Protein backbone atom coordinates (compact mmCIF):
# COMPACT_ATOMS: atom_id res chain seq x y z
CA UNK A 1 0.00 0.00 0.00
CA UNK A 2 2.91 2.34 0.80
CA UNK A 3 4.22 1.54 -2.65
CA UNK A 4 0.96 2.46 -4.32
CA UNK A 5 0.83 5.74 -2.46
CA UNK A 6 4.40 6.50 -3.48
CA UNK A 7 3.61 5.73 -7.10
CA UNK A 8 0.52 7.94 -7.02
CA UNK A 9 2.59 10.76 -5.59
CA UNK A 10 5.19 10.33 -8.34
CA UNK A 11 2.47 10.37 -11.00
CA UNK A 12 0.98 13.54 -9.52
CA UNK A 13 4.32 15.29 -9.66
CA UNK A 14 5.03 14.20 -13.23
CA UNK A 15 1.53 15.21 -14.27
CA UNK A 16 1.88 18.63 -12.69
CA UNK A 17 5.21 19.17 -14.42
CA UNK A 18 3.84 18.12 -17.81
CA UNK A 19 0.81 20.41 -17.57
CA UNK A 20 3.02 23.28 -16.45
CA UNK A 21 5.49 22.74 -19.28
CA UNK A 22 2.85 22.21 -21.95
CA UNK A 23 0.91 25.24 -20.73
CA UNK A 24 -2.35 23.31 -20.99
CA UNK A 25 -4.14 20.33 -19.53
CA UNK A 26 -6.91 19.40 -17.13
CA UNK A 27 -5.08 19.29 -13.87
CA UNK A 28 -8.00 19.28 -11.42
CA UNK A 29 -9.59 16.14 -12.78
CA UNK A 30 -6.18 14.54 -13.15
CA UNK A 31 -5.35 15.01 -9.49
CA UNK A 32 -8.73 13.62 -8.45
CA UNK A 33 -8.31 10.46 -10.54
CA UNK A 34 -4.65 9.58 -10.03
CA UNK A 35 -5.14 7.40 -6.95
CA UNK A 36 -7.70 5.35 -8.86
CA UNK A 37 -5.46 5.06 -11.92
CA UNK A 38 -2.56 3.99 -9.73
CA UNK A 39 -4.57 1.29 -7.97
CA UNK A 40 -5.80 -0.01 -11.32
CA UNK A 41 -2.44 -0.16 -13.13
CA UNK A 42 -0.26 -1.25 -10.22
CA UNK A 43 -2.56 -3.54 -8.28
CA UNK A 44 -5.72 -4.54 -10.11
CA UNK A 45 -5.46 -4.76 -13.89
CA UNK A 46 -4.01 -7.84 -15.51
CA UNK A 47 -2.21 -6.01 -18.31
CA UNK A 48 1.25 -6.45 -19.79
CA UNK A 49 3.20 -3.52 -21.21
CA UNK A 50 5.19 -5.94 -23.38
CA UNK A 51 1.98 -7.37 -24.84
CA UNK A 52 -0.54 -4.54 -24.65
CA UNK A 53 -2.98 -6.31 -26.95
CA UNK A 54 -2.94 -9.78 -25.39
CA UNK A 55 -6.52 -11.00 -25.83
CA UNK A 56 -7.22 -11.96 -22.22
CA UNK A 57 -6.02 -8.69 -20.70
CA UNK A 58 -8.28 -6.71 -18.41
CA UNK A 59 -9.72 -3.67 -20.12
CA UNK A 60 -9.60 -0.13 -18.77
CA UNK A 61 -11.33 2.82 -20.41
CA UNK A 62 -10.60 6.38 -19.34
CA UNK A 63 -13.94 7.85 -20.31
CA UNK A 64 -13.05 11.27 -18.92
CA UNK A 65 -10.54 11.59 -21.75
CA UNK A 66 -9.70 15.21 -20.97
CA UNK A 67 -7.50 13.88 -18.17
CA UNK A 68 -5.39 12.04 -20.74
CA UNK A 69 -2.15 13.28 -19.31
CA UNK A 70 -2.72 11.43 -16.05
CA UNK A 71 -3.18 8.28 -18.13
CA UNK A 72 -0.04 8.97 -20.18
CA UNK A 73 2.04 9.43 -17.05
CA UNK A 74 0.55 6.26 -15.56
CA UNK A 75 1.21 4.31 -18.77
CA UNK A 76 4.78 5.61 -18.78
CA UNK A 77 5.23 4.64 -15.14
CA UNK A 78 3.83 1.17 -15.96
CA UNK A 79 6.15 0.75 -18.95
CA UNK A 80 3.70 1.07 -21.84
CA UNK A 81 5.43 4.13 -23.29
CA UNK A 82 8.88 5.59 -22.60
CA UNK A 83 9.06 7.84 -19.56
CA UNK A 84 10.73 10.60 -21.58
CA UNK A 85 7.85 10.71 -23.97
CA UNK A 86 5.66 12.49 -21.44
CA UNK A 87 7.74 15.60 -22.22
CA UNK A 88 6.16 15.64 -25.71
CA UNK A 89 2.63 16.12 -24.31
CA UNK A 90 0.74 18.43 -26.74
CA UNK A 91 3.83 19.12 -28.85
CA UNK A 92 3.40 19.17 -32.64
CA UNK A 93 3.08 15.63 -33.99
CA UNK A 94 3.35 14.04 -30.54
CA UNK A 95 1.18 10.97 -30.15
CA UNK A 96 0.22 12.37 -26.75
CA UNK A 97 -2.47 14.87 -27.61
CA UNK A 98 -5.07 16.26 -25.26
CA UNK A 99 -7.22 13.12 -25.45
CA UNK A 100 -5.97 9.52 -25.61
CA UNK A 101 -5.61 7.85 -29.00
CA UNK A 102 -5.65 4.03 -29.10
CA UNK A 103 -4.33 3.92 -32.64
CA UNK A 104 -1.11 5.54 -31.47
CA UNK A 105 -0.60 4.94 -27.76
CA UNK A 106 -0.14 1.38 -26.49
CA UNK A 107 -2.33 0.60 -23.52
CA UNK A 108 -5.17 2.87 -24.61
CA UNK A 109 -8.22 0.75 -25.47
CA UNK A 110 -10.53 3.21 -27.18
CA UNK A 111 -10.51 6.89 -28.06
CA UNK A 112 -12.28 9.24 -25.72
CA UNK A 113 -12.66 13.00 -25.45
CA UNK A 114 -16.33 13.54 -26.12
CA UNK A 115 -17.87 12.70 -22.75
CA UNK A 116 -20.31 9.84 -22.38
CA UNK A 117 -18.58 7.38 -24.70
CA UNK A 118 -16.58 5.16 -22.36
CA UNK A 119 -19.37 3.35 -20.57
CA UNK A 120 -21.20 2.16 -23.71
CA UNK A 121 -17.91 0.87 -25.16
CA UNK A 122 -17.07 -0.80 -21.84
CA UNK A 123 -20.46 -2.52 -21.87
CA UNK A 124 -19.56 -3.94 -25.26
CA UNK A 125 -16.18 -5.14 -23.97
CA UNK A 126 -17.76 -6.79 -20.93
CA UNK A 127 -20.45 -8.35 -23.11
CA UNK A 128 -17.75 -9.79 -25.39
CA UNK A 129 -16.00 -11.41 -22.42
CA UNK A 130 -19.28 -12.79 -21.16
CA UNK A 131 -20.16 -14.20 -24.60
CA UNK A 132 -16.81 -15.96 -24.90
CA UNK A 133 -16.82 -17.17 -21.31
CA UNK A 134 -13.57 -15.27 -20.68
CA UNK A 135 -12.56 -14.21 -17.20
CA UNK A 136 -11.00 -10.84 -17.95
CA UNK A 137 -12.69 -7.83 -16.43
CA UNK A 138 -13.61 -4.39 -17.73
CA UNK A 139 -13.18 -1.13 -15.81
CA UNK A 140 -14.25 2.31 -16.85
CA UNK A 141 -13.64 5.65 -15.15
CA UNK A 142 -16.07 8.52 -15.80
CA UNK A 143 -16.34 12.02 -14.44
CA UNK A 144 -19.38 12.91 -12.37
CA UNK A 145 -20.36 15.79 -14.65
CA UNK A 146 -19.94 13.35 -17.50
CA UNK A 147 -22.78 11.28 -16.07
CA UNK A 148 -25.14 14.01 -17.29
CA UNK A 149 -24.75 12.55 -20.79
CA UNK A 150 -27.76 10.39 -21.61
CA UNK A 151 -25.63 7.76 -23.36
CA UNK A 152 -24.37 6.66 -19.94
CA UNK A 153 -27.85 5.83 -18.78
CA UNK A 154 -28.63 3.86 -21.92
CA UNK A 155 -25.48 1.87 -21.23
CA UNK A 156 -26.36 1.51 -17.54
CA UNK A 157 -29.65 -0.12 -18.49
CA UNK A 158 -27.95 -2.44 -20.96
CA UNK A 159 -25.29 -3.51 -18.46
CA UNK A 160 -27.90 -4.54 -15.90
CA UNK A 161 -30.04 -6.27 -18.52
CA UNK A 162 -26.98 -8.24 -19.65
CA UNK A 163 -26.05 -9.05 -16.01
CA UNK A 164 -22.49 -7.84 -16.61
CA UNK A 165 -20.91 -8.65 -13.27
CA UNK A 166 -17.53 -8.45 -15.01
CA UNK A 167 -17.98 -4.69 -15.47
CA UNK A 168 -16.95 -2.03 -12.97
CA UNK A 169 -17.81 1.62 -13.41
CA UNK A 170 -15.90 4.05 -11.23
CA UNK A 171 -17.39 7.54 -11.02
CA UNK A 172 -14.83 10.18 -10.07
CA UNK A 173 -17.26 12.10 -7.89
CA UNK A 174 -15.36 15.34 -7.32
CA UNK A 175 -18.58 17.42 -7.34
CA UNK A 176 -17.26 19.81 -9.98
CA UNK A 177 -17.63 19.97 -13.73
CA UNK A 178 -16.12 22.42 -16.21
CA UNK A 179 -17.84 25.65 -15.33
CA UNK A 180 -19.45 25.11 -11.94
CA UNK A 181 -20.41 22.61 -9.25
CA UNK A 182 -22.72 19.81 -10.31
CA UNK A 183 -25.13 20.94 -7.63
CA UNK A 184 -25.47 24.28 -9.42
CA UNK A 185 -25.68 22.84 -12.92
CA UNK A 186 -27.49 19.55 -13.24
CA UNK A 187 -27.24 17.72 -9.98
CA UNK A 188 -26.96 13.95 -10.05
CA UNK A 189 -27.18 13.47 -6.33
CA UNK A 190 -27.92 11.05 -4.93
CA UNK A 191 -25.99 8.83 -7.32
CA UNK A 192 -26.10 5.48 -5.46
CA UNK A 193 -29.89 4.98 -5.39
CA UNK A 194 -30.09 5.94 -9.03
CA UNK A 195 -27.71 3.16 -9.99
CA UNK A 196 -29.39 0.74 -7.62
CA UNK A 197 -32.69 1.51 -9.30
CA UNK A 198 -31.00 0.73 -12.63
CA UNK A 199 -30.08 -2.73 -11.30
CA UNK A 200 -26.45 -2.15 -10.33
CA UNK A 201 -24.53 -3.08 -7.19
CA UNK A 202 -23.21 0.15 -5.71
CA UNK A 203 -20.51 1.01 -3.20
CA UNK A 204 -19.33 4.39 -2.04
CA UNK A 205 -15.71 4.97 -1.13
CA UNK A 206 -13.21 7.70 -0.45
CA UNK A 207 -11.69 7.75 -3.91
CA UNK A 208 -8.48 9.36 -2.74
CA UNK A 209 -7.88 6.66 -0.12
CA UNK A 210 -5.70 3.90 -1.53
CA UNK A 211 -6.91 1.18 0.88
CA UNK A 212 -10.51 1.95 0.10
CA UNK A 213 -9.91 1.90 -3.65
CA UNK A 214 -8.02 -1.37 -3.57
CA UNK A 215 -10.71 -2.95 -1.39
CA UNK A 216 -13.54 -1.89 -3.68
CA UNK A 217 -11.74 -3.16 -6.78
CA UNK A 218 -10.89 -6.59 -5.35
CA UNK A 219 -12.26 -9.54 -7.35
CA UNK A 220 -14.06 -10.81 -4.23
CA UNK A 221 -16.08 -7.62 -4.23
CA UNK A 222 -17.98 -8.81 -7.30
CA UNK A 223 -21.74 -9.18 -6.88
CA UNK A 224 -22.99 -12.11 -8.95
CA UNK A 225 -25.25 -11.08 -11.83
CA UNK A 226 -24.86 -7.33 -11.35
CA UNK A 227 -22.58 -4.69 -12.82
CA UNK A 228 -20.72 -2.75 -10.16
CA UNK A 229 -20.70 1.01 -9.69
CA UNK A 230 -18.11 2.51 -7.39
CA UNK A 231 -19.00 6.04 -6.42
CA UNK A 232 -15.57 7.40 -5.58
CA UNK A 233 -15.80 10.54 -3.49
CA UNK A 234 -12.77 12.54 -4.53
CA UNK A 235 -11.47 16.07 -4.54
CA UNK A 236 -10.75 17.87 -7.75
CA UNK A 237 -7.14 19.05 -7.43
CA UNK A 238 -6.46 16.48 -4.69
CA UNK A 239 -3.06 16.94 -3.07
CA UNK A 240 -2.54 20.59 -4.02
CA UNK A 241 -4.08 22.87 -1.43
CA UNK A 242 -4.93 25.87 -3.59
CA UNK A 243 -6.43 23.76 -6.39
CA UNK A 244 -8.48 21.49 -4.23
CA UNK A 245 -12.23 21.76 -4.75
CA UNK A 246 -11.91 24.90 -6.86
CA UNK A 247 -13.75 24.98 -10.17
CA UNK A 248 -11.25 27.18 -12.01
CA UNK A 249 -8.64 24.44 -11.75
CA UNK A 250 -10.60 22.33 -14.21
CA UNK A 251 -8.16 23.48 -16.87
CA UNK A 252 -6.21 26.36 -15.45
CA UNK A 253 -2.44 26.23 -15.80
CA UNK A 254 -0.29 27.06 -12.77
CA UNK A 255 2.04 30.05 -12.89
CA UNK A 256 5.69 29.32 -12.08
CA UNK A 257 5.11 30.37 -8.50
CA UNK A 258 2.04 28.18 -8.17
CA UNK A 259 3.89 25.34 -9.86
CA UNK A 260 6.70 25.55 -7.34
CA UNK A 261 4.35 25.67 -4.41
CA UNK A 262 2.33 22.72 -5.74
CA UNK A 263 5.51 20.73 -6.26
CA UNK A 264 6.65 21.53 -2.74
CA UNK A 265 3.37 20.30 -1.32
CA UNK A 266 3.53 17.07 -3.31
CA UNK A 267 7.15 16.51 -2.32
CA UNK A 268 6.26 17.04 1.34
CA UNK A 269 3.45 14.50 1.00
CA UNK A 270 5.95 11.99 -0.37
CA UNK A 271 8.02 12.05 2.81
Amino acid at each position, binding site marked *: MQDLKAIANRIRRRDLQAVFEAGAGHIGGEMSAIDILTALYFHVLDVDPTAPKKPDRDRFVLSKGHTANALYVTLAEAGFIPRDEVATFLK*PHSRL*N*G*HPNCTKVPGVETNTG*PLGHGLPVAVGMAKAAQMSGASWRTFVLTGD*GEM*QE*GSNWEAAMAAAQFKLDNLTLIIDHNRL*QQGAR*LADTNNLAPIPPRFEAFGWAVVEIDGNDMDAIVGALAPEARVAGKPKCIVAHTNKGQGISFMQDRVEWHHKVPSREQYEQAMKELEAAAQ
Partner: protein
Amino acid sequence: MNAETKLYDCRDAFVGTLEALAEANPEIVAVCNDSVGSSKLGGFRDRWPDRLVNVGIAEQNMVGVGAGLANGGKLPFVCGAACFLTGRALEQIKADIAYSNANVKLCGISAGMAYGELGPTHHSIEDFAWLRALPNLPVIAPCDRAETAAATRFAASYEGPLFLRLSRVGVPDILPDDHEFALGKANRLREGSDLTIIANGVLTHRALAAADLLAGNGIEARVLNMATVRPIDEEAIGAAAADTGAILTCEEHTVFGGLGSAVAEVVVRGRPVPMEILGVPGIFPPTGSANFLLDEFGMSPEGIAERAMALLKRKA
Protein backbone atom coordinates in the same frame (compact mmCIF):
# COMPACT_ATOMS: atom_id res chain seq x y z
CA MET B 1 0.01 40.13 -42.32
CA ASN B 2 2.70 42.09 -40.48
CA ALA B 3 3.64 41.49 -36.89
CA GLU B 4 1.57 44.42 -35.63
CA THR B 5 -1.72 43.35 -37.19
CA LYS B 6 -4.16 43.00 -34.35
CA LEU B 7 -5.97 39.71 -34.07
CA TYR B 8 -9.38 39.23 -32.50
CA ASP B 9 -11.25 36.32 -30.98
CA CYS B 10 -14.64 36.53 -32.72
CA ARG B 11 -16.44 35.06 -29.72
CA ASP B 12 -16.24 38.53 -28.19
CA ALA B 13 -18.05 40.09 -31.14
CA PHE B 14 -20.60 37.29 -30.96
CA VAL B 15 -21.46 37.66 -27.27
CA GLY B 16 -21.25 41.45 -27.39
CA THR B 17 -23.85 41.48 -30.15
CA LEU B 18 -25.94 38.79 -28.48
CA GLU B 19 -26.10 40.83 -25.29
CA ALA B 20 -27.13 43.96 -27.20
CA LEU B 21 -29.86 41.98 -28.95
CA ALA B 22 -30.98 40.39 -25.69
CA GLU B 23 -31.31 43.80 -24.11
CA ALA B 24 -33.79 44.81 -26.80
CA ASN B 25 -35.60 41.49 -27.06
CA PRO B 26 -36.58 39.80 -23.78
CA GLU B 27 -37.47 36.57 -25.59
CA ILE B 28 -33.82 35.91 -26.46
CA VAL B 29 -32.41 33.13 -24.30
CA ALA B 30 -29.06 31.35 -24.33
CA VAL B 31 -28.85 27.57 -24.02
CA CYS B 32 -25.59 25.81 -23.23
CA ASN B 33 -23.95 22.60 -22.06
CA ASP B 34 -21.62 23.43 -19.16
CA SER B 35 -20.07 25.81 -21.70
CA VAL B 36 -20.62 29.21 -20.10
CA GLY B 37 -16.89 29.91 -20.11
CA SER B 38 -15.98 28.45 -23.50
CA SER B 39 -18.96 30.23 -25.12
CA LYS B 40 -18.11 33.45 -23.23
CA LEU B 41 -21.61 33.58 -21.80
CA GLY B 42 -20.48 34.80 -18.36
CA GLY B 43 -21.63 38.35 -19.06
CA PHE B 44 -24.99 37.16 -20.37
CA ARG B 45 -25.44 35.00 -17.27
CA ASP B 46 -24.59 37.84 -14.93
CA ARG B 47 -27.07 40.15 -16.59
CA TRP B 48 -29.89 37.70 -17.13
CA PRO B 49 -29.36 34.62 -14.97
CA ASP B 50 -32.94 33.51 -15.64
CA ARG B 51 -32.45 33.60 -19.38
CA LEU B 52 -29.48 31.25 -19.44
CA VAL B 53 -30.50 27.60 -19.68
CA ASN B 54 -27.52 25.39 -18.83
CA VAL B 55 -28.62 21.79 -19.31
CA GLY B 56 -25.29 20.34 -18.15
CA ILE B 57 -23.08 18.09 -20.27
CA ALA B 58 -25.89 16.81 -22.48
CA GLU B 59 -25.85 18.08 -26.07
CA GLN B 60 -28.75 16.03 -27.39
CA ASN B 61 -30.90 17.38 -24.60
CA MET B 62 -29.55 20.88 -25.22
CA VAL B 63 -30.73 20.91 -28.83
CA GLY B 64 -34.09 19.32 -27.98
CA VAL B 65 -34.61 21.85 -25.20
CA GLY B 66 -33.75 24.61 -27.67
CA ALA B 67 -36.47 23.38 -30.02
CA GLY B 68 -38.99 23.33 -27.17
CA LEU B 69 -38.04 26.82 -26.04
CA ALA B 70 -38.63 28.09 -29.57
CA ASN B 71 -41.99 26.35 -29.68
CA GLY B 72 -42.85 28.09 -26.43
CA GLY B 73 -42.15 31.52 -27.89
CA LYS B 74 -38.52 32.06 -26.95
CA LEU B 75 -35.70 32.93 -29.33
CA PRO B 76 -32.96 30.49 -28.32
CA PHE B 77 -29.27 30.86 -29.17
CA VAL B 78 -27.92 27.37 -28.50
CA CYS B 79 -24.21 27.67 -27.80
CA GLY B 80 -21.77 24.80 -27.45
CA ALA B 81 -18.45 23.56 -28.76
CA ALA B 82 -19.15 23.04 -32.46
CA CYS B 83 -17.83 19.48 -32.46
CA PHE B 84 -20.30 18.29 -29.80
CA LEU B 85 -23.18 20.50 -30.87
CA THR B 86 -23.11 19.20 -34.43
CA GLY B 87 -21.67 15.72 -34.02
CA ARG B 88 -23.40 14.60 -30.89
CA ALA B 89 -26.77 16.15 -31.56
CA LEU B 90 -26.97 15.73 -35.32
CA GLU B 91 -30.25 13.85 -35.29
CA GLN B 92 -31.79 16.41 -32.96
CA ILE B 93 -30.60 19.13 -35.34
CA LYS B 94 -32.18 17.28 -38.25
CA ALA B 95 -35.51 16.28 -36.70
CA ASP B 96 -36.16 18.83 -33.95
CA ILE B 97 -34.62 21.92 -35.56
CA ALA B 98 -34.40 21.76 -39.37
CA TYR B 99 -37.28 19.41 -40.20
CA SER B 100 -39.51 20.92 -37.50
CA ASN B 101 -38.54 24.42 -38.64
CA ALA B 102 -37.78 25.49 -35.07
CA ASN B 103 -36.61 29.09 -34.83
CA VAL B 104 -33.37 28.14 -33.11
CA LYS B 105 -29.95 29.65 -33.71
CA LEU B 106 -27.30 26.97 -33.42
CA CYS B 107 -23.99 28.58 -32.50
CA GLY B 108 -21.02 26.25 -32.91
CA ILE B 109 -18.22 27.69 -30.82
CA SER B 110 -14.51 27.08 -31.47
CA ALA B 111 -15.26 25.28 -34.72
CA GLY B 112 -12.71 24.04 -37.19
CA MET B 113 -9.44 23.10 -35.51
CA ALA B 114 -9.63 25.85 -32.92
CA TYR B 115 -9.18 23.29 -30.15
CA GLY B 116 -5.84 22.38 -31.72
CA GLU B 117 -3.89 20.07 -29.45
CA LEU B 118 -7.04 18.68 -27.84
CA GLY B 119 -7.17 16.60 -30.97
CA PRO B 120 -9.58 15.25 -33.57
CA THR B 121 -12.41 14.55 -31.12
CA HIS B 122 -12.55 18.26 -30.45
CA HIS B 123 -12.07 19.46 -34.01
CA SER B 124 -15.18 20.35 -35.92
CA ILE B 125 -14.05 19.87 -39.50
CA GLU B 126 -17.03 17.87 -40.71
CA ASP B 127 -19.76 20.31 -39.72
CA PHE B 128 -20.15 21.96 -43.16
CA ALA B 129 -20.67 18.53 -44.69
CA TRP B 130 -23.08 17.29 -42.04
CA LEU B 131 -25.15 20.41 -41.84
CA ARG B 132 -25.26 21.51 -45.45
CA ALA B 133 -26.78 18.12 -46.22
CA LEU B 134 -29.84 19.18 -44.23
CA PRO B 135 -32.66 21.19 -45.81
CA ASN B 136 -33.83 24.35 -44.07
CA LEU B 137 -30.61 25.09 -42.22
CA PRO B 138 -28.46 27.97 -43.45
CA VAL B 139 -24.79 27.39 -42.63
CA ILE B 140 -22.72 30.52 -41.97
CA ALA B 141 -19.00 30.88 -41.17
CA PRO B 142 -18.03 34.53 -40.59
CA CYS B 143 -14.47 35.67 -41.26
CA ASP B 144 -13.91 38.46 -38.74
CA ARG B 145 -15.42 40.55 -35.94
CA ALA B 146 -17.61 42.71 -38.17
CA GLU B 147 -19.05 39.76 -40.03
CA THR B 148 -19.58 37.82 -36.80
CA ALA B 149 -21.54 40.71 -35.31
CA ALA B 150 -23.50 41.22 -38.54
CA ALA B 151 -24.31 37.53 -38.86
CA THR B 152 -25.44 37.42 -35.23
CA ARG B 153 -27.79 40.35 -35.82
CA PHE B 154 -29.01 38.63 -38.96
CA ALA B 155 -29.63 35.41 -37.01
CA ALA B 156 -31.90 37.19 -34.55
CA SER B 157 -33.93 38.80 -37.33
CA TYR B 158 -34.18 35.70 -39.54
CA GLU B 159 -37.30 33.56 -39.06
CA GLY B 160 -36.09 29.99 -38.92
CA PRO B 161 -33.16 27.82 -37.89
CA LEU B 162 -29.57 28.43 -38.86
CA PHE B 163 -26.05 27.43 -37.91
CA LEU B 164 -23.39 29.99 -37.04
CA ARG B 165 -19.88 28.58 -37.15
CA LEU B 166 -17.63 30.59 -34.85
CA SER B 167 -13.94 30.35 -34.08
CA ARG B 168 -11.75 31.40 -31.21
CA VAL B 169 -8.61 31.62 -33.32
CA GLY B 170 -7.49 35.23 -33.69
CA VAL B 171 -8.26 36.91 -37.01
CA PRO B 172 -7.60 40.47 -38.24
CA ASP B 173 -10.35 42.91 -39.17
CA ILE B 174 -11.34 42.50 -42.80
CA LEU B 175 -14.82 43.92 -43.38
CA PRO B 176 -15.93 47.43 -42.36
CA ASP B 177 -17.51 47.91 -38.93
CA ASP B 178 -20.91 48.67 -40.44
CA HIS B 179 -20.92 45.52 -42.58
CA GLU B 180 -24.42 44.14 -43.21
CA PHE B 181 -24.77 40.41 -43.55
CA ALA B 182 -26.67 39.10 -46.58
CA LEU B 183 -27.51 35.40 -46.53
CA GLY B 184 -26.12 33.51 -49.49
CA LYS B 185 -24.13 36.47 -50.80
CA ALA B 186 -20.37 36.39 -51.11
CA ASN B 187 -18.26 39.51 -50.60
CA ARG B 188 -15.75 40.34 -53.28
CA LEU B 189 -12.76 41.42 -51.23
CA ARG B 190 -10.28 41.76 -54.05
CA GLU B 191 -10.56 42.10 -57.78
CA GLY B 192 -8.57 39.95 -60.17
CA SER B 193 -8.90 38.10 -63.43
CA ASP B 194 -6.33 35.29 -63.30
CA LEU B 195 -8.16 33.07 -60.82
CA THR B 196 -10.60 33.28 -57.92
CA ILE B 197 -9.82 32.24 -54.38
CA ILE B 198 -12.92 31.45 -52.32
CA ALA B 199 -12.64 31.16 -48.55
CA ASN B 200 -14.53 31.74 -45.35
CA GLY B 201 -14.00 31.73 -41.59
CA VAL B 202 -10.39 31.88 -40.45
CA LEU B 203 -9.21 31.16 -43.99
CA THR B 204 -10.37 34.45 -45.50
CA HIS B 205 -7.49 36.53 -44.17
CA ARG B 206 -5.04 33.84 -45.25
CA ALA B 207 -6.55 33.90 -48.74
CA LEU B 208 -6.12 37.68 -48.89
CA ALA B 209 -2.50 37.36 -47.82
CA ALA B 210 -1.98 34.70 -50.49
CA ALA B 211 -3.45 37.07 -53.09
CA ASP B 212 -0.90 39.69 -52.03
CA LEU B 213 1.89 37.19 -52.56
CA LEU B 214 0.50 36.26 -55.96
CA ALA B 215 0.28 39.91 -56.95
CA GLY B 216 4.00 40.11 -56.27
CA ASN B 217 4.38 37.50 -59.01
CA GLY B 218 2.12 39.38 -61.39
CA ILE B 219 -0.89 37.17 -60.75
CA GLU B 220 -4.15 38.90 -59.94
CA ALA B 221 -6.52 36.81 -57.87
CA ARG B 222 -10.13 37.67 -57.15
CA VAL B 223 -10.91 36.86 -53.53
CA LEU B 224 -14.41 35.98 -52.41
CA ASN B 225 -15.40 35.70 -48.79
CA MET B 226 -18.17 33.10 -48.84
CA ALA B 227 -19.52 32.94 -45.32
CA THR B 228 -22.72 31.22 -46.36
CA VAL B 229 -22.00 27.64 -47.36
CA ARG B 230 -25.69 26.93 -47.81
CA PRO B 231 -27.48 28.48 -49.62
CA ILE B 232 -24.34 28.99 -51.69
CA ASP B 233 -23.90 32.07 -53.86
CA GLU B 234 -24.31 30.50 -57.30
CA GLU B 235 -24.13 33.83 -59.04
CA ALA B 236 -20.75 34.76 -57.58
CA ILE B 237 -19.38 31.31 -58.35
CA GLY B 238 -20.68 31.45 -61.92
CA ALA B 239 -19.13 34.87 -62.40
CA ALA B 240 -15.82 33.68 -60.92
CA ALA B 241 -15.74 30.77 -63.37
CA ALA B 242 -16.66 32.95 -66.33
CA ASP B 243 -14.40 35.90 -65.50
CA THR B 244 -11.32 34.17 -64.11
CA GLY B 245 -11.42 30.60 -65.45
CA ALA B 246 -9.98 28.91 -62.35
CA ILE B 247 -11.17 28.55 -58.75
CA LEU B 248 -9.27 27.67 -55.61
CA THR B 249 -11.24 27.10 -52.41
CA CYS B 250 -9.77 27.18 -48.89
CA GLU B 251 -11.52 26.00 -45.76
CA GLU B 252 -10.83 24.92 -42.19
CA HIS B 253 -12.72 21.71 -42.87
CA THR B 254 -12.16 18.34 -44.46
CA VAL B 255 -12.00 18.52 -48.26
CA PHE B 256 -14.84 16.02 -48.30
CA GLY B 257 -18.17 17.73 -48.48
CA GLY B 258 -17.41 21.27 -47.35
CA LEU B 259 -17.09 24.67 -49.00
CA GLY B 260 -15.00 23.31 -51.86
CA SER B 261 -17.53 20.59 -52.57
CA ALA B 262 -20.37 23.09 -52.47
CA VAL B 263 -18.55 25.36 -54.94
CA ALA B 264 -17.65 22.40 -57.17
CA GLU B 265 -21.29 21.33 -57.31
CA VAL B 266 -22.13 24.70 -58.82
CA VAL B 267 -19.10 24.82 -61.11
CA VAL B 268 -19.73 21.43 -62.73
CA ARG B 269 -23.36 22.22 -63.36
CA GLY B 270 -22.73 25.62 -64.87
CA ARG B 271 -19.36 26.30 -66.36
CA PRO B 272 -16.68 23.71 -65.60
CA VAL B 273 -13.27 25.29 -64.98
CA PRO B 274 -10.19 23.84 -63.27
CA MET B 275 -10.55 23.87 -59.48
CA GLU B 276 -8.46 23.04 -56.44
CA ILE B 277 -9.91 22.33 -53.02
CA LEU B 278 -7.68 23.17 -50.07
CA GLY B 279 -8.65 21.91 -46.64
CA VAL B 280 -7.88 19.10 -44.24
CA PRO B 281 -6.93 16.22 -46.51
CA GLY B 282 -9.30 13.60 -45.18
CA ILE B 283 -7.24 12.50 -42.18
CA PHE B 284 -7.53 12.86 -38.42
CA PRO B 285 -5.06 15.71 -37.88
CA PRO B 286 -1.91 15.16 -35.84
CA THR B 287 -1.22 17.02 -32.60
CA GLY B 288 -0.81 20.77 -33.04
CA SER B 289 -2.42 24.18 -32.71
CA ALA B 290 -5.00 25.36 -35.24
CA ASN B 291 -2.58 27.72 -36.97
CA PHE B 292 0.15 25.09 -37.01
CA LEU B 293 -2.23 22.58 -38.58
CA LEU B 294 -3.52 25.03 -41.19
CA ASP B 295 0.07 25.71 -42.26
CA GLU B 296 0.82 21.99 -42.17
CA PHE B 297 -2.07 21.32 -44.54
CA GLY B 298 -0.85 23.86 -47.07
CA MET B 299 -3.03 26.75 -45.98
CA SER B 300 -0.37 29.25 -45.03
CA PRO B 301 -0.47 32.26 -47.39
CA GLU B 302 2.57 30.74 -49.12
CA GLY B 303 0.90 27.33 -49.34
CA ILE B 304 -2.25 28.81 -50.82
CA ALA B 305 -0.26 30.88 -53.31
CA GLU B 306 1.69 27.81 -54.36
CA ARG B 307 -1.51 25.87 -54.95
CA ALA B 308 -2.87 28.78 -56.94
CA MET B 309 0.19 28.76 -59.23
CA ALA B 310 -0.20 25.01 -59.76
CA LEU B 311 -3.86 25.55 -60.59
CA LEU B 312 -3.02 28.25 -63.14
CA LYS B 313 -0.93 25.73 -65.08
CA ARG B 314 -4.12 23.75 -65.65
CA LYS B 315 -6.04 26.74 -66.89
CA ALA B 316 -6.95 26.54 -70.58
